[in-house]
């Protein structure tokens, strides 16, 4: 009995050790990025963990260093924040609206639209890239915020997720609210949304993350420096800053850390929501 207890203890310790090692390997790239962003330039990309540190990379971001021309990193960061938030909020609002109708309102054509959403979601979107670009260009939205936001204002996945979730909300609640004279807008806002907090966290984080790291669309629709998102600016500087990786690491940290911090803050809610959405 004592032997088997000790055995179990050892197995448990081995499990934790294995999980820790694997986790360290998985987060090592992030650690590498952050440490190299603070590393002395002579030490960048030369050690597994840099041993000498300086703030030169961050200073360079804002002064342009030897090139003398600072790139608009901060402006690009603000563009990223604005575009991602606007896009994501629109995707959420439209997601809730459409899903509410598709799950709780009875109207002509509902099944057809429901089926079409599924079809649309699995349709290979790559066909649409060039003509979507042309449409945005023709209506004069090339190189503008609306050009970045509008084609990404509706998420089929969000509609799909909310529809499935709302279907599980008992209709009795809604009928009761209706008898009390509540409008559909009020039912959506006062009943459906509060009930779906955890799934809303999941959808919001996934959508925000996806929008925040978008490259292809943000790259083709933007021409001028003042419209660049941070992700695209880092991408553009890959070549020119090839021999100055420090500032690129600093900019990457600037791009990555906010989303990680946000995720850790919402971590608990996110997990609850994931558990639900995977059932």
């Amino acid at each position: 009995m004592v032997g088997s207890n000790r055995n179990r203890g050892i197995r448990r310790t081995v499990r934790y050790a294995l999980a820790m090692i694997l986790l360290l390997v998985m987060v090592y790239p992030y650690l590498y990025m952050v440490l190299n962003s603070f590393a002395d330039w002579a030490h960048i990309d030369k050690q597994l963990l840099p041993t000498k540190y300086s703030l030169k990379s961050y200073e360079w971001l804002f002064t342009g260093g030897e090139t003398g021309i600072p790139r608009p990193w901060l402006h690009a960061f603000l563009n990223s924040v604005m575009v991602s938030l606007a896009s994501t909020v629109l995707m959420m609002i439209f997601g809730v609206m459409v899903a509410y109708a598709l799950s709780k309102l009875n109207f002509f054509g509902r099944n057809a639209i429901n089926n079409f959403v599924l079809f649309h979601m699995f349709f290979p979107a790559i066909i649409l890239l060039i003509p979507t670009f042309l449409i945005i260009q023709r209506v004069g939205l090339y190189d503008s915020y609306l050009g970045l936001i509008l084609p990404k204002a509706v998420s089929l996945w969000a509609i799909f997720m909310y529809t499935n979730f709302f279907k599980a909300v008992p209709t009795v609640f809604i009928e009761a609210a209706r008898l009390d004279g509540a409008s559909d807008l009020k039912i959506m806002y006062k009943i459906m949304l509060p009930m779906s907090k955890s799934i809303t966290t999941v959808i919001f984080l996934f959508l925000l993350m996806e929008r925040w790291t978008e490259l292809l669309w943000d790259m083709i629709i933007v021409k001028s420096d003042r419209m660049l998102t941070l992700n695209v600016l880092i991408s553009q500087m890959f070549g020119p800053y090839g021999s100055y990786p420090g500032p690129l690491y600093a900019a990457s940290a600037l791009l990555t850390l906010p989303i990680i911090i946000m995720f850790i803050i919402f971590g608990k809610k996110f997990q609850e929501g994931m558990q639900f959405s995977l059932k």
Partner: protein
Amino acid sequence: MDHRNNKMGWLFTSPYLLYSLIFFFGPLIWSFFLSVTDWNLIAPTFNLVGIENFANALKSPSVHSAFWVTYKFMIIFVPIVTVLATAVAVLVHGLPRFKSLFLIGFFLPYLSSGVVSSLIAKGLLSYTSPMNVFLRKMGLDIDWLGTPLSALGIVGLILAWKFTGYYALILTSGLESIDKEVYEAAAIDGVTDRQRFWRITLPLLYPSLYTTLILAFGVTFGIFTEVYQLTGGGPNNATNTWQMEIFKQAFTNLQAGYASAVALLASVATFISIFIIRKFLEIWGKRNGWV
């Protein structure tokens, strides 16, 4: 009780209807039209060329490479990410405490931008990196991104790094739904650990595994950022994905008509491949009695 409300229904779905009109049906029809023209994205005029674009695309070596590269990435990415995610899920699931903490940790790579992960990979593979210095001492001088096989492997690994934690999360919730009594019964029958995994865990995990496999196969059809950042589709088209090919033809060579034809071919290839993969996975599951 069941009252019809057409006005409200259409009003609430109108954002989606409008969106699909402008950003789905419009582009779809335009795309078909573009694919039979020789339009070059800036010229004021164009000619109708019939199926010439398609004929050229089917003969083009870079389109051939895009077709095959997708399946090469599949062979590299799907097994690696599936094995890693299963390992993480089984490992974390067996921990008595801190389960969610570990799961959140493993999920973090999913939040990375492809641009950033490419930068980090480039740094870790740079000429002065500890790994390469060590390998050179051993007499190995590898140009990781300039060699077709390793370039494919690197991009595959970056993607596996990104998706492992996400899929592990899906698999963990699959493991959680397995009835504990099954394991207890097996323990009484004296089942070994290995038998337990292959005969009990894996079959009962199949529904979640199916989800992650479909997601993973889907990823390989949309690879762009990592390839654009690290290899530009090279060396010698070895990592030239569909998205990369379409981007190059449309926005570098400005061949909008031709690129639209390539995009249509890409969609057809994607559609058929996903269909076959789904069927294959279903038959595989049924044959083993897992579904």
